[in-house]
């Protein structure tokens, strides 16, 4: 016997999950996503009269591992000021003890949805280069993302590309603040944050785990990450994910697969993906910049470092790059021959 419908149950669950924002400057609007750590809502910042995304923990715990992770995520985001990384506005604790943070509300599409409307390979590669810019910036600041995948990339209405969901980020070194570092479960014990008011992020989280356990997304996480070898993780782990992401952009799947129209992927692009997503970290690109450089070279019609070309391939690339000009010269020569024939009639 069923006393309550599924939709009514869902509404009850939503109501139970809805955070009590009393005492903050935010007014709750609607739920937009659910992740491993918490739920993301849209809210209105009543002081600034703008819409923000508010990420809040499921559980009312200020000193637990999840709370530490959420605060650390907010601090990592705060340390990464870059046009390709979603900016955090605020972090704090609600009256019921739940930790939250607010961030920019991105009115865009997830990358996997967005590319359905982008047929051109060069356009997809240009999106990829913007992702690389953001990830390279984070690496320069000593932060690994560790969960790069299409669902964690948003493309805004003006084509802006934002890397989201830094909940699994690992702080390697250097420039990120000590406050952010202390929240890293692979770094040190967490220091309880000072009392504050508000916070948020607008994405879903894949998996949240503790020290030395597997975290990430199958198909996108590097083999060393999948094994839980946390100590071995460095920038090349994200480069593996970028390789899988590039493959997804080109084929619709993170692993080796034929193109949707049945044709084969260009050898240079396939080589870039293969080099980035090879099992051995030592054989991958040493940095995101080098991978991006290879993609840029491909876009410019130049040889890529990942693929040594044969003479025939070089000639074909030269032809592709200067096709119109070569055809123009050929047309000119043909016209010259026609004039000669005309003159000798």
């Amino acid at each position, binding site marked *: 016997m069923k006393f309550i419908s599924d939709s009514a149950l869902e509404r009850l669950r939503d109501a139970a999950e809805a955070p009590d924002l009393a005492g903050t400057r935010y007014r709750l609007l609607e739920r937009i996503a659910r992740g491993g750590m918490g739920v993301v809502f849209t809210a209105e910042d009543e002081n600034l009269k703008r819409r923000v995304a508010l990420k809040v923990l499921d559980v009312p715990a200020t000193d637990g591992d999840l709370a530490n992770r959420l605060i650390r995520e907010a601090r990592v985001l705060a340390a990464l000021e870059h046009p390709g990384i979603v900016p955090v506005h605020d972090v704090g604790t609600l009256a019921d003890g739940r930790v939250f943070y607010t961030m920019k509300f991105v009115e865009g599409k997830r990358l996997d949805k967005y590319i359905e409307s982008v047929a051109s390979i060069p356009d997809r590669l240009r999106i990829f280069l913007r992702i690389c810019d953001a990830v390279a910036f984070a690496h320069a600041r000593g932060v690994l993302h560790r969960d790069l995948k299409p669902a964690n990339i948003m493309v805004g209405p003006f084509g802006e590309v934002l890397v989201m969901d830094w909940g699994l980020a690992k702080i390697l070194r250097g420039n990120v603040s000590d406050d952010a570092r202390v929240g890293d479960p692979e770094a040190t014990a967490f220091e309880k944050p000072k009392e504050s008011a508000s916070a948020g992020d607008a994405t879903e989280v894949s998996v949240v785990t503790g020290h030395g356990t597997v975290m990430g997304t199958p198909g996108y996480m590097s083999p060393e990450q999948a094994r839980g070898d946390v100590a071995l993780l460095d920038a090349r782990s994200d480069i593996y994910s970028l390789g899988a992401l590039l493959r997804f952009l080109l084929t619709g799947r993170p692993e080796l697969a034929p193109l949707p129209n049945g044709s084969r992927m260009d050898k240079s692009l396939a080589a870039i993906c293969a080099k980035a997503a090879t099992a051995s970290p030592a054989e991958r690109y040493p940095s995101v910049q080098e991978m991006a450089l290879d993609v840029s070279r491909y876009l410019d019609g130049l040889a890529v470092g990942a693929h040594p070309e044969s003479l025939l391939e070089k000639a074909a690339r030269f032809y592709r790059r*200067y096709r119109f*000009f070569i055809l123009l010269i050929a047309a000119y020569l043909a*016209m010259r021959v026609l004039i000669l024939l005309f*003159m000798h009639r």
Partner: protein
Amino acid sequence: MNKVLLGLLIGALLGAIDGGTAWFTPAVRAQIVGIVFGSTLKGLIAGVAAGIFARKVNSVPLGILFGLAVGFILAFLVAHYLQHGYYFEIILPGSIVGMIVGYATQRYGAAPVPATR
């Protein structure tokens, strides 16, 4: 390679080919060296002019139009000077060489780097 050098090389190459085809016309075969030299010089001047134009104006249609005009004027002057009566045979290819050089200098070659303070 900068646009002026690119224009110079392509103009000279196409001009030399253009002049070289005079070999197939027995009436002017004896003057082939002078024709090739003159045609190369014509192509070279058109190429440099198109290259300089491309540095100033960033527009493929305008570049092609400019190349066409320069090629036409130079070829007309050559045909008029030679007084062979081969106006069509000289002006048409000369104008097309100008167009090609105009296109190439707009589309290819490194643009000058803007000055920074």
